[in-house]
């Protein structure tokens, strides 16, 4: 089972099964015929705009909306006070002013008492046009009593720190999770501490500690978030067109928020202009469009502008990490300990599985074989935007992969050992799989050394090191950075993984029509991953039906079975497995039908792609298309077998899948200006079996650009007064085609042993793995100046200051 397996071609020239077929979706997109939320226009639809707080922390003294209400074209101006008066027969509170977050916290829909971050929702204007709605914002007069803001997570627990969540009766800025814990640990604390202490005392060992910040960044999909809500006042039916990566989960949340009967809610997530985690959360704007429709009796559209997107919706990262690594002087890793201060913003809006308040951060022990690891994660409230599962992070694995790959490089520097050699000495050996990690993960499969050696071969690693030495002698600084990452994706086994009590299994439904054409209905939601193509390929692989004969339906809760949605690279590992399972169910049903038609026992039949035939008599058989017609015909079927060729399935993954990869980045640094040029980027990914290699490579390309962006330029920073300094694309810089090199990709294929088709998921691999490669390369380049670490983003200013021996604190933009 490898990616290069030859498969027959369909009449349309597509592979029947796996292979690089062109995308089904492209036909509409290249013609400008996509259907995104802002393209939805319903008769009588009203528009809206949100007035947001200019302050990070302030008490609302008064709101005067009379002038806004008097503006011609304005239909309604809603405040938090009004929402508090709209009763809801809800499971989670008694009015609309507050809503639950995905982490069992509460978040203000519109502020009633205080504003707690700059950009928080204060009032909602509904008007006949978006221009008038925007005009009306200027006419709302809010009086604020400005309070001191907590902008530095390190000061959030100071005794004199202002208390942010007084609404909950808190007396400090700690965050208590649903289990009652204020911090969360994994691994063996005592054994790890003992191993580090022993290493410190041992002259044959070294211990390296580094403070490593993964600063606040934003997924910033090109399409901002928005919704169109239509609540039919007669039938009580709510139809919500919305930018959602998880339509079914959102439907359940709206049922809880709005107190609406869940069967009356239809969530439609049409074409989505990129998600990257930004469209996992439920935002006040979505709820306000629903409330707006409830109060006006008309459809209401809400689309955020770019500043609203960057300033108020789910940020990512903001992890302050102290990492300690112990090793022998020969470079054998003994123990790693990581202590994390997590900045969660003003409302705990992270979307992690309930039992994992720090997500899967505890996979930080990485790709290396050593016995002792421990982490402790302590979250705090600050006066910043809420959220925290976003930007292709695989539930905090991005932070985990970054911290281990960075600290391993720090260890290499301390040992004066080549970082490739150090990694090769410690990689988990192939015969150790399934491998139980020191923090309790069971890595399913891997051939790590093979993957790493392939990356080094593509890079010409030894030659690069020679070139580097020659250049250094001439005063030119190039750097080579390596990252070897392991992810755990495909959440997850429902016994241990749920979000808001919803187990993370995915439903699926396959119908094969009498003519042998099929419809597959998915719970997961594409935001560009091409589910309409790849899921058809999975069914094609299992049944031999040409992929062009299989339509994939997704993004509409009325038309698809329940499932938790697309994030954490879970579509292929969970719903992809479901697609395989449901197709195999159909194949087994087809076998019975074929046996009836061929007047033999099902046990006498053998499967070849697209056809059941009689063992030893290959001419005697029935194609899946023939069987489809037969199954709808008058053919007599065995007792207990109904007709038709449809099936449903729910897939509950037995374990996560563990994609991994080795990335090598080559940079040139102008140490006199601090400018970094990414010259080459080599990425060898092992995501198990590749359904559509073209699409897999596209996913990797995108993630590599993310990594370059985060490593070099992306940052949501704040000043001391709480002003967001990354609130537009003028300051939240995203990489362009000029910063990205012509990536060089390679692959190894180690199938997942427990996934029906051996696939592991790849959507976030490159975003997870690439930042460390870029940072390691830059630090490698400037290491002759005694630099061992500098925090992202490595802007020209930060690189120059690091070379000067005075690296900057990057989370505060102005020193």
């Amino acid at each position, binding site marked *: 089972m490898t990616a290069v397996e030859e498969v027959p071609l369909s009449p349309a020239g597509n592979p029947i099964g796996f292979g690089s077929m062109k995308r089904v979706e492209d036909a509409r997109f*290249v013609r400008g015929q996509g259907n995104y939320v802002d393209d939805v226009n319903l008769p009588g639809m009203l528009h809206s705009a949100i007035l947001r707080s200019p302050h990070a922390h302030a008490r609302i003294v008064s709101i005067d909306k009379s002038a806004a209400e008097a503006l011609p074209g304005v239909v309604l101006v809603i405040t938090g006070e009004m929402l508090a008066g709209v009763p809801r027969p809800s499971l989670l509170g008694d009015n609309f002013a507050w809503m639950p977050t995905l982490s069992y916290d509460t978040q203000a829909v519109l502020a009633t008492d205080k504003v707690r971050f700059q950009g928080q929702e204060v009032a909602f204007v509904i008007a006949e046009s978006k221009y008038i709605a925007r005009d009306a914002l200027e006419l709302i007069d809010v009086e604020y009593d400005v309070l001191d803001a907590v902008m530095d997570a390190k000061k959030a627990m100071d005794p004199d720190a202002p208390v942010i969540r007084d609404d909950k009766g808190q007396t400090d800025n700690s965050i208590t999770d649903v289990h009652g814990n204020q911090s969360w640990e994994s691994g063996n604390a005592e054994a790890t501490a003992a191993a580090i202490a022993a290493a410190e005392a041992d002259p044959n060992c070294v211990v390296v500690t580094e403070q490593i910040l993964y600063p606040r960044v934003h997924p910033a999909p090109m399409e901002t978030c928005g919704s169109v809500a239509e609540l039919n006042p007669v039938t009580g039916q709510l139809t919500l067109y919305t930018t959602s990566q998880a339509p079914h989960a959102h439907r359940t949340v709206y049922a809880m928020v709005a107190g609406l009967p869940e069967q009356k809610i239809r969530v439609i997530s049409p074409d989505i202009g990129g998600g990257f985690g930004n469209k996992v959360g439920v935002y006040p704007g979505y709820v306000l469009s629903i409330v707006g429709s409830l109060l006006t009796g008309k459809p209401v559209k809400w689309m955020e502008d*770019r500043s609203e997107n960057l300033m108020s919706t789910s940020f990512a990262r903001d992890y302050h990490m102290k990492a300690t690594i112990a090793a022998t002087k020969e470079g054998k890793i003994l123990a790693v300990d990581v202590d994390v201060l997590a900045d969660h913003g003003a409302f705990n809006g992270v979307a992690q599985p309930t039992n994992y308040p720090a997500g899967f951060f505890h996979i930080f022990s990485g790709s290396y074989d050593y016995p002792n690891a421990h982490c402790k994660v302590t979250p705090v409230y600050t006066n910043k935007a809420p959220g925290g599962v976003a930007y292709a992070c695989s539930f905090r694995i991005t932070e985990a992969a970054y911290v281990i790959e960075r600290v391993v490089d720090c260890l290499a520097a301390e040992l004066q050992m080549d970082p490739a050699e150090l990694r090769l000495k410690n990689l988990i050996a192939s015969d150790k799989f399934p491998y139980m990690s020191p923090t309790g993960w069971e890595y399913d499969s891997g051939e790590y050394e093979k993957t790493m050696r392939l990356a080094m071969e593509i890079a010409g690693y030894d030659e690069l090191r020679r070139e580097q030495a020659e250049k250094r002698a001439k005063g030119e600084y190039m750097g080579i950075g390596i990252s070897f990452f392991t992810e755990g994706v495909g959440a997850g086994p429902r016994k241990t993984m749920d979000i808001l009590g919803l187990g993370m299994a995915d439903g699926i439904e396959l119908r094969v029509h009498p003519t042998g054409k099929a419809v597959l209905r998915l719970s997961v939601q594409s935001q560009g991953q091409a589910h309409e193509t790849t899921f058809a390929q999975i069914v094609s692989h299992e049944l031999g039906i040409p992929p062009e004969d299989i339509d994939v339906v997704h993004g509409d809760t009325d038309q698809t079975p329940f499932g938790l949605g697309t994030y954490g690279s879970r579509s292929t590992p969970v719903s992809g497995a479901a697609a395989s399972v449901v197709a195999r169910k159909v194949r087994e049903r087809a076998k019975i039908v074929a046996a009836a038609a061929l007047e033999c026992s099902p046990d006498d039949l053998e499967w070849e792609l697209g056809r059941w035939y009689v063992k030893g008599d290959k001419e005697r058989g029935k194609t899946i298309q023939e069987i489809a017609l037969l199954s709808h015909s008058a053919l007599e079927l065995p007792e207990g077998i109904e007709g038709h060729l449809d099936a449903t399935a729910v897939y509950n993954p037995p374990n996560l899948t563990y994609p991994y990869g080795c990335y090598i980045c080559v940079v040139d640094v102008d140490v006199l200006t601090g400018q970094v040029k990414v010259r080459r980027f080599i990425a060898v990914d092992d995501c198990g079996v590749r359904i559509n290699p073209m699409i897999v490579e596209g996913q990797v390309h995108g993630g590599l650009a993310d990594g370059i962006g985060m490593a070099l330029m992306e940052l949501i920073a704040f000043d001391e007064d709480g002003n967001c300094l990354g609130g537009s694309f003028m300051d939240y810089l995203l990489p362009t085609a000029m910063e990205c090199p012509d990536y060089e990709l390679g692959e190894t294929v180690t199938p997942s042993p427990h996934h029906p088709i051996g696939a592991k998921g790849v959507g976030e691999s490159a975003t997870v793995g690439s930042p460390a490669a870029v940072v390691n390369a830059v630090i490698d380049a400037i290491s002759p100046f005694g630099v061992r670490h500098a925090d992202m983003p490595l802007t020209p200013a930060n690189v120059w200051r690091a070379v000067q021996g005075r690296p900057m604190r990057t989370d505060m933009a102005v020193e």
Partner: protein
Amino acid sequence: MQITLTVNGTEYTRDVEPRMLLVHFIRDELLLRGTHWGCDTSNCGTCTLWVDGEPVKSCTMLAVMADGRAIRTVEGLANGAELDPIQQGFIECHGLQCGFCTPGMMMTGRWLLDNNPNPSEGEIRECISGQICRCTGYKNIVSAIQWAAEHPATSEVTS
């Protein structure tokens, strides 16, 4: 005020507020929703279309400023059922994922090739440097434009 302009070969006359942005005119008045928008500061290039034969960020031009001019949008690339090579190139090379930046990228790519039929990789990258894509990492967009360069066809505005 009343404006008259040509979009993809068809003349339209509409009464608009002077403040209306060209992108909103195209999307909301003419209902050509293939032109998207992505920011407020002219940085992302998602809204790129042609005005008098040159790509322009339509969020940074008022509809009244386009009075009397000829606009071309993504809907004007294909000749009926026949795709422009730039569109075919994006399909062939997997030059798009979510599809949101794609119309703007294709409009710029078409313009580049009309003026420079055999651009280098560097010239392509520079030409699209005012447009952000979050999905593809650009490599396949560059390949798509190269594909179109290798499969030339006329790109006259279809009416």
